[in-house]
């Protein structure tokens, strides 16, 4: 390769590199643009009220937050996700058999959230419940806890 052809080749390679990187950067910018910087969605950690608001026995379903809050007489508070792990439908808690049933594809979860039947790939999530300073219960969906987790008040 002589000097002339080397220079020619270098110019071509540099041009191609510039073009490819320009396209790459533009594509990355488009993707970044489409990914929202702020989500205007309900917060993942929220207060749900005072312990006295929740009865013993059947769980309380919180519509907006999509969680079940359980209050057990001697064990305390716990919160389970109401979102089916299969395709995101909202599960229902049946008092009759103490299990969670998903209406979309028939997944059934046991009282501790584990999968008993159907296509769901994993158990329902349980979230951390804490008592905040103002005496309200606080649920943090970012903190997944084992199903044995309980908050004693």
């Amino acid at each position, binding site marked *: 390769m002589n000097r002339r052809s080397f220079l020619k080749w270098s110019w071509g390679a540099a041009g191609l590199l510039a073009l490819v990187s320009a396209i790459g950067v533009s594509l990355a910018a488009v993707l970044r643009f489409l990914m929202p910087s702020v989500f205007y969605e309900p917060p993942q950690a929220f207060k749900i009220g005072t312990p006295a608001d929740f009865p013993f026995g059947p769980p309380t379903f919180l519509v907006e937050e999509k969680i079940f809050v359980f209050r057990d007489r001697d064990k305390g508070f716990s919160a389970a996700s109401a979102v089916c792990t299969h*395709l995101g439908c909202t599960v229902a808690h049946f008092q009759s058999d103490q299990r969670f*049933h998903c209406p979309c594809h*028939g997944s059934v979860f046991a009282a501790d959230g584990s999968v008993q039947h159907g*296509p769901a790939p994993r158990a329902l999530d349980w979230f951390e419940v804490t008592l905040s300073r103002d005496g309200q219960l606080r649920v943090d969906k970012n903190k997944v806890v084992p199903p044995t987790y309980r908050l004693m008040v």
Partner: protein
Amino acid sequence: MNLIREIWQSIVRRDRLSTDKGKSELVFLNVWLHIHPAKVKREHMKFSHTFYLGFITFFLFLILLTTGIALMCYYRPYPPQAYQDMKDLEFVVYMGSFLRAMHRWAAHGMVVCVFLHMCRVFYTGSYKKPRQFNWVVGVVLLLLTLGLSFTGYLLPWDQLAYWAITVGTNIGSYAPLVGGQLRELLLGGHTVGEAALLRFYVLHVAVLPSLLILLTIVHLWRVRKDGGLSRPVWKLKESKLETLVTIGAPAETAALQAQPAVTSKTYGLMEVVTGKPIFETVTPEEEEDTVFSYPYAFVREALALMATVTAIMTISLLFRAPLEELANPAKTPNPAKAPWYFLGLQELVSHSALLGGVVAPALMVVALLAIPYFDRNPSRQLTQRKWALGLFTLFVVVNLVLIVVGTFFRGPGWALVPPWVHVVGGAE
């Protein structure tokens, strides 16, 4: 009067339609009509050859475009208002309910017709050389049609819309590595919410229709360049050479054979294009069977257009587009079903989300795209394509069975319930 004639002649610059030259000029001096050839082969326009499915699909798209623009005048893509606007369209806006029904039924019809068109093209072997790539364009058009239908499904913001899209987009999130982020990108959030509605709206009214129009232009252009509608299979038989008999010669003497003087004749459209074009090559025998597109083809297309519009209008008068209650993220209807053309997919997903929702459909699309390159058999005769026909028929039947099972045989909790059994209340 002279001025009027002058104005008319400045617009329409062809000869009178009573002349052959006028009939030709009508086609190739007109930007909209010149996608047609000036002359068409009579048997290509036979209804039983194509069932006009491509035309009907195109006409349904025109209905969707016009009714869609009309509906946009009364629609705001924002959660509570979107549903109120639907109620307004149904009960307040003059002809709103009718236009919405037309849009809905034409959309379903387009999904059906695109699929049937694909089947027709397959069974007549019309995807074979030189039309391989046009088949690929067609498959992409099918996917765009499904995408348009899916994005449109969310816009009413009722229970049906909300849960179909929740389930549908969650299927996508099972794609390995990128699935979750892909869903977030599509929805503009973690759940189906106001950001998702706006994004689906943008896709539905701007991005996907533009892509569909661009690719349709390519699709039709290539059909034209490859010699128009593909030849009916029944015209593919090799014509036998005539045998001449020498009078008085002994019977065992080999017969003389006549050779046609010209085997083909080529019409070159543009003098600057050199070389023999791959299109517009006809034998003299075939040329006898050609007729001018005006009026032969145009009348048939106009009839197909009128039949399509009439059918959609009639259906829309008889059946209103469904509208359920306002979307409620807390209450999943039981059973929650995706749009019918995705129910086969949902049926698969009910068994395994990754295999049924991602792997199987991806393989299906790849297989469809690869058909013209994988199928090396040059023959278009049905009897010589047993493997191809068998496999494709299996594909069609499996899809239909899955859709029928998902639509009619799935009850509350996705349990198998025959359609003639009425479930009271269901699991609540």
